[in-house]
C-alpha cells in the first residue's frame, strides 16, 4: 500500500516565558491510501499540534517546527510556499474540527461557507458553487439542504453543524482528511450518526482519514491503524485489532482499563495513577516512568526507542507487555 502521507521526524517547540514546551518530539506517521489512522492520547499530548502540522497550519512564530519530510501524495510539501499550501489545503487535504459552533463563522450562512470551497478551488461561480453545496449537504444527510444552506450556524443543531463541517471537508474530494476530535462536542447518539456518516463518506470517496481523538470507542469503530501518543511522543503503533486485543505499552493498557464497562462490578473508575507531566518539565528517561508500575532504573534514565514488534506493531517500551502479562 503506497502511503498517502509520510511524516518523518516532526518536532514542534513553543518557546514560552516559563520554559520551552516540546509539544511534539520526533513523530513519524504513515497513512496509507484509503486508510483510517487514529491518533490517540490525552489532552495536551501533542496530537492536535501533530495533525495541524501535517497541513502546516501551526504558525511560526510562536511555534518552531522542524521536520525531515512531509511527503503527501508523492510530493514533499515541507518547503511549499504559503501560496502553494493554500492551493493544497481544502483541495487535496482538509480538516474537520472539534467544535462546530466555534469552527463556523457566526455571521455567514453555512451555505456561503461551503460555497467558498468550490469558488476557491474549482473556480466556480457563486451559482454553480451553491448547486454543488446543496448536493454535498444532501449527500451528508442534512434534511432540506437548500433551505438549510441559508441558515446561520446558530440556527442549526450540534449534529447538523458537524455535518456541515463534514460536507465542507469532503467538498473537493480531498486525498486526506484530518478529523480533530470530530465527535467530542456531540452527545452519544449523534456521535454514532456522525461517525457513521464520516466512515461512509470516507469509504465512498476513497479518502484517507487521520482521526485525532481521545475516545477509544471511536477508534475501535472506525480506525485501521492506531498511534498512541504520550507527552509528545508516539508510544505505540498497531493495527486496531491487535491494539485492543493485546496492548503492549503500559500506558495503552492503562487507557483501556480506564474505559468504564457496563459489566464492571466495582463502584470506582480505574485510572492511571499520577498526572501527565507538565510539557515544560518532562521527566528523565521514559516520560511515562513516574506513572508506570513496571518502571526500572533503566526506564528512569533512558528514553526507550520505538521498537518493532512484528506485524506492523511498534512500541516505545523496554518491557512491552504480552498477552499473558508483563515480560
Amino acid at each position: 500500500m503506497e502511503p498517502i502521507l509520510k511524516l518523518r521526524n516532526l518536532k514542534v517547540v513553543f518557546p514560552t516565558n516559563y520554559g520551552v514546551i516540546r509539544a511534539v518530539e520526533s513523530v513519524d506517521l504513515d497513512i496509507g491510501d484509503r486508510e483510517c489512522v487514529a491518533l490517540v492520547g490525552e489532552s495536551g499530548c501533542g496530537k492536535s499540534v501533530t495533525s495541524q502540522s501535517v497541513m502546516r497550519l501551526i504558525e511560526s512564530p510562536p511555534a518552531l517546527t522542524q521536520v525531515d519530510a512531509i511527503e503527501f501524495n508523492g510530493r514533499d510539501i515541507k518547503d511549499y510556499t504559503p501560496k502553494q499550501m493554500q492551493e493544497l489545503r481544502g483541495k487535496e487535504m482538509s480538516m474537520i474540527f472539534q467544535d462546530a459552533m466555534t469552527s463556523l463563522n457566526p455571521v455567514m450562512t453555512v451555505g456561503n461557507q461551503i460555497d467558498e470551497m468550490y469558488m476557491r478551488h474549482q473556480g466556480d461561480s457563486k451559482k454553480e458553487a451553491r448547486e454543488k453545496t446543496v448536493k454535498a449537504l444532501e449527500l451528508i444527510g442534512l434534511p432540506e439542504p437548500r433551505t438549510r444552506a441559508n441558515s446561520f450556524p446558530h440556527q442549526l443543531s450540534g449534529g447538523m453543524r458537524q455535518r456541515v463541517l463534514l460536507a465542507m471537508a469532503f467538498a473537493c474530494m480531498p486525498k486526506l482528511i484530518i478529523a480533530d476530535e470530530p465527535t467530542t462536542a456531540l452527545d452519544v447518539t449523534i456521535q454514532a450518526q456522525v461517525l457513521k456518516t464520516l466512515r461512509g463518506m470516507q469509504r465512498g470517496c476513497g479518502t484517507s482519514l487521520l482521526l485525532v481523538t481521545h475516545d477509544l470507542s471511536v477508534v475501535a469503530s472506525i480506525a485501521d491503524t492506531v498511534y498512541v501518543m504520550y507527552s509528545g511522543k508516539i508510544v505505540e503503533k498497531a493495527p486496531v485489532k491487535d491494539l485492543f486485543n493485546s496492548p503492549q505499552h503500559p500506558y495503552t493498557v492503562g487507557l483501556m482499563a480506564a474505559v468504564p464497562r457496563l459489566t464492571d462490578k466495582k463502584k470506582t473508575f480505574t485510572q492511571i495513577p499520577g498526572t501527565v507531566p507538565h510539557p515544560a518539565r518532562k521527566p528523565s528517561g521514559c516520560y511515562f516512568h513516574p506513572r508506570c508500575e513496571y518502571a526500572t532504573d533503566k526506564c528512569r534514565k533512558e528514553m526507550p526507542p520505538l521498537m518493532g514488534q512484528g506485524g506492523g506493531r511498534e512500541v516505545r517500551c523496554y518491557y512491552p507487555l504480552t498477552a499473558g502479562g508483563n515480560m
Partner: protein
Amino acid sequence: MKYTYVIKRILYSLFVFAVVITLNFFIPRIGVDDPAERYYPPQGNMSEIEYEIIKQVTRQQYGFHVSTGQQYMNYLKGLFQGDLGTSFRPGSPAVIDLILERLPWTLVLSVSTMLIGVTIGILFGVLAAVKRGRWQDTMLLNASTIMVALPAFFIALILSFYLGFELEIFPAYTDSTMVSGFTWTWEGIRRVAQNAALPVLSMVVGSIISYAQGTRNAVIAVTNEDFVLTARAKGLKQSTIRYKHILRNSMLPIVTSLGMSISGLIGGQVVIEQVFNWNGMGTLFLEANNSNDYPLMMGIMLLLSGFTIFAILVTDLVYVLLDPRVTVGDKR
C-alpha cells in the same frame, strides 16, 4: 422574528424616554415647594413684599401658579409641540432657540473629531493587528499609554500655547465674530475651519487612539477564533480570510463603541470649549448651570438623554443587520 425584535426595541426606547421626561421634570422640583423660590433666590436687600411680588410674577410667567400635576401636563403638551420651556434669561428666549443656536457649532467640532477619529483609528487598529508585535503595534501601545495619562484639556492648553500664541499658525482662541459674522461663503467656512483646527486636534488624538486600540484588540481576538483556523484549513486566500471572515466579525464591538460615541456628539465638550472660547453646547450648559437657569438645563438634559436613547436604539438595529445571532432570543 426580526420585526418583533425591532418593534420591541423601539417600544422599549420610548418607554425609557418617557421615564426620562418624567424624572427630568420632577427632579428639579424635589425638596422645594415653590419652584419660583429655587429659580429666583432672594437677592440683596429685597424686602419681604418685594420678593413675594417677584415670586408671584415668576409663577405666572413660567406657569408655576397651577398644581404640579397640571404643570406636568402642560410640560408634556409643550414637548409635543417642540416647546422645551422658556429660559430665565433676560428677554425670556425659548430654550429650544438657545439650543438650536449653539448646536451647529458643537456639531462642527464633534462630528469632524469623530469622522477623523473613526477613519484613521480603524485603519491604524487594523494595521497594528496585522503587524502584531512589530513596531507599528508597539507604537500604538505606547501612544495609548501616553494618551491615558494626558487629558484632552492638557493637550488643548499645550496646542493653544504653542500652535496658537507662539507660532500663530492657528487662532489660539475663537474670536467672537466667527459666529456673528458667519456667512455660507468659502471665506466663512475657511474661518470656521481655522478656528476649529485646534479644538478638533486636541480631541482627535485621543479619539484616534481609542478607536485604534479597540479595533486592534477586536481584530486580534477574532483572529484567534476557531473559525479563522477553519478558513485557513479551507485554503482560502489571506485577503479573503482577512476581509470576509476576520474584519466583519471584528466590526461588532466597534459598532457598539461607535454608537456610544454618537450619543456624545451633541453634548459638547465643556472643558475644551472653555479653553478655546468656543460657543457650543458645553458652554451653554455651563452658563445655564451658573445662572440657575433651570428650564434651560432641563431642556439640554432632555435633548441629551433623548439623543442617547436614540443612538443606542440605532446601534441595536444596526447590530441586527451585522450579527444574525441577535434575534435568537425572540425565535420561539
